[in-house]
């Protein structure tokens, strides 16, 4: 396990200033409804404006429209977008994991087909991993792809797919063969969500949204050209993919704006010493977690795979997101109403309703602890 201290260099800080200026211009505070970190709204026009600045697909190869830029630069852009509450929903998954996966294991044809569109902020992706009977135990997925002329025929059901009702493609984990052990024989397939046989059913959630979906595949044809990476190597691929997504600022910024906005709307809190203590403790924690996250980005740029480090950070970060919310609620005078005229209240209400998912989505803290413990004992 290695976390090494790092700071942003002048070039990276200049990038940070640029992003801040861009957001101040294009999305000034008060001109839009901010989201909670990575749960930001889907806004293709904004994604495209970001892409025009070269800030979507930053880590993707320049040959395919990307920036070939280091993970740290992507970190710098990502944290500014998330803490601002910018509407990143359209490109987030594509940029964070699907694009990099294609860049790493995709065929030249796949890269040519998808990466430029991702980098322009045009194409959106969602992830198809969980199934009704396969949550934490992803190797047990039963969605199956059977060999057919020129490709595969897929049958099965994916569940909890965020945004499947409004995204273009799904990166789906399916079983294509049976290996000696159940981790062999899984593959990742690109599924066009508008293909015949794909049925998307929104699942209404307790926060009032229906962004999570059940996606049923009934004899969906996926051509050979849409298999990502070697057949049967899906398990190893998703291991890498998940490592990327676990250590980043999206894991500790979900409730940041709640604190900032509360401070903005209630300056009288400044005279309450217990609020001052909470604020100070929270700021120190953000500062500390950021350091760990930034260190992971640097490690990725060195060519390493900090999977254990990322799991360690996500476990701690998501618990912090929840604890911060509970602490902030202690200073709120009335039950936050979703339709309130106060932005702080609206953000709080959304946070209250969605907070329990922080420690579940993308790997429960129970699973993460298992991963870290194994890594510590290795």
């Amino acid at each position, binding site marked *: 396990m290695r976390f090494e201290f790092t700071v942003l260099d002048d070039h990276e800080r200049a990038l940070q200033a640029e992003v801040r200026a861009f957001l101040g211009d294009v999305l000034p505070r008060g001109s839009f409804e901010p989201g909670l970190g990575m749960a930001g709204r889907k806004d293709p026009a904004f994604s495209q404006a970001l892409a025009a600045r070269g800030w979507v697909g930053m880590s993707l190869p320049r040959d395919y429209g990307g920036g070939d830029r280091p993970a740290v630069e992507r970190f710098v852009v990502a944290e500014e977008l998330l803490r601002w509450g910018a509407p990143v929903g359209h490109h987030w998954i594509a940029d964070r994991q699907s694009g990099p996966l294609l860049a790493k294991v995709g065929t030249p044809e796949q890269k040519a087909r998808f990466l430029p569109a991702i980098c322009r902020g045009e194409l959106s992706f969602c992830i198809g991993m969980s199934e009704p009977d396969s*949550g934490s135990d992803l190797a047990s997925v039963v969605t199956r792809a059977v060999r057919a002329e020129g490709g595969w025929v897929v049958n099965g059901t994916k569940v909890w797919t965020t945004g499947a009702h409004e995204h273009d493609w799904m990166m789906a984990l399916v079983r294509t063969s049976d290996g000696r052990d159940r981790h062999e024989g899984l593959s990742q397939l690109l599924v066009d969500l508008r293909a015949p046989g794909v049925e998307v059913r929104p699942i209404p959630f307790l926060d009032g949204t229906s962004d999570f979906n059940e996606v049923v595949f009934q004899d969906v044809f996926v051509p050979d050209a849409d298999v990502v990476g070697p057949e049967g190597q899906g398990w190893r691929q998703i291991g890498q993919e998940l490592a990327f997504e676990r250590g980043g600022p999206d894991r500790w910024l979900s409730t940041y704006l709640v604190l900032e906005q509360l401070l903005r709307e209630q300056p009288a809190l400044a005279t309450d010493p217990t609020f001052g203590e909470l604020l100070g403790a929270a700021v120190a924690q953000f500062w500390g977690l950021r350091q760990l996250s930034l260190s992971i980005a640097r490690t990725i740029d060195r060519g390493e795979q900090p999977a254990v480090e990322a799991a360690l950070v996500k476990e701690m970060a998501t618990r912090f997101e929840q604890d911060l919310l509970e602490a902030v609620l202690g200073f709120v005078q009335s*039950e936050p109403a979703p339709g309130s005229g106060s932005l702080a209240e609206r953000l709080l*209400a959304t946070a209250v309703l969605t907070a329990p*998912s922080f*420690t579940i989505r993308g790997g429960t803290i129970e699973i993460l602890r298992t991963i870290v413990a194994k890594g510590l004992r290795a």
Partner: protein
Amino acid sequence: MADATAVDRNALDLFERSLRGLLTTDGVDVDAALAEVGWRDFLAADPVAAVPLLFGVQGELLLGGTALDDVALDALDFDPSRLEIDGALVHPRRCVDAAMRHDRTLVVDGLVVGERTPASFVVVVGSGAVIVPATALDCAVVQGIDPSLELVRVRGTVSLADVSMADDVDGAAVAPACRRALAYELLGAVDAMLATATEYAQARHQFGQPIGAFQAVKHRLADVYVARQAASAVLAESWHSEPECTTLAAKALAARAGALAAEHCLQVLGAIGFALEHPLHRFVRRVRVLDHLYGTEAELRTQLGRLLLARGRVPRPGSA
């Protein structure tokens, strides 16, 4: 007020079974069902048996209804129907009194359970109570996170000349009695959540075994159970000890158990716990809203702390 006759165990079971039978019917009119089983008489005869039973079931089945009013009026020792008054009780939001006196006026701001249009409202003021004509106050249905409770916010300023005083009532007994009832309701919800999560942990298999086999899951459920039992113990004590302190503590502990149950049960259920198609979310909402009636957990703790500091001592269990 409690009568000398206590209802025996068999009668209690019978009562509970009839009650559940009536209340688990779809679209049931809770108040009518309660009237049918003679709930008010039961409450008057043996509140120690009646309140835990009814409110436990209410929490478990997520019922609406106006039983909380009955508890309040019983504690108040006031029967508005005897004076031909059709009144609904105005309960406090959080720890703020439902009514504040300023010279010759009364400022009212509280919650009424069960959407209805009574002719008047009964409001506790200090150690007494007043009856306010409904036309004097504004009502607005609360569009919060648990609409099934049918809460209505009642607000307005009335002149004392326009209200009538209820004589010979025990206003101070209302908050403790209502806190106690709400605590039982919270624990009923906790029991339902725990049952759901436990059943899920046994049925849901991952990695070739029920997820309940994993220590992490076991411990979450155990923690909820421990919190529930702690609240339950203080609740039981609240019938025998100094009621003001013990009911503050009991509702605070019950609210804590409710929050813990929501958190842990959601974590154990994973994503399905968030889907509307699964019943868990309704309990999650219910415990949040119940936390707001008669004081949130944090407010109750502060109030309890103040009370203990003022008295300079901690009441001993079993002492009046």
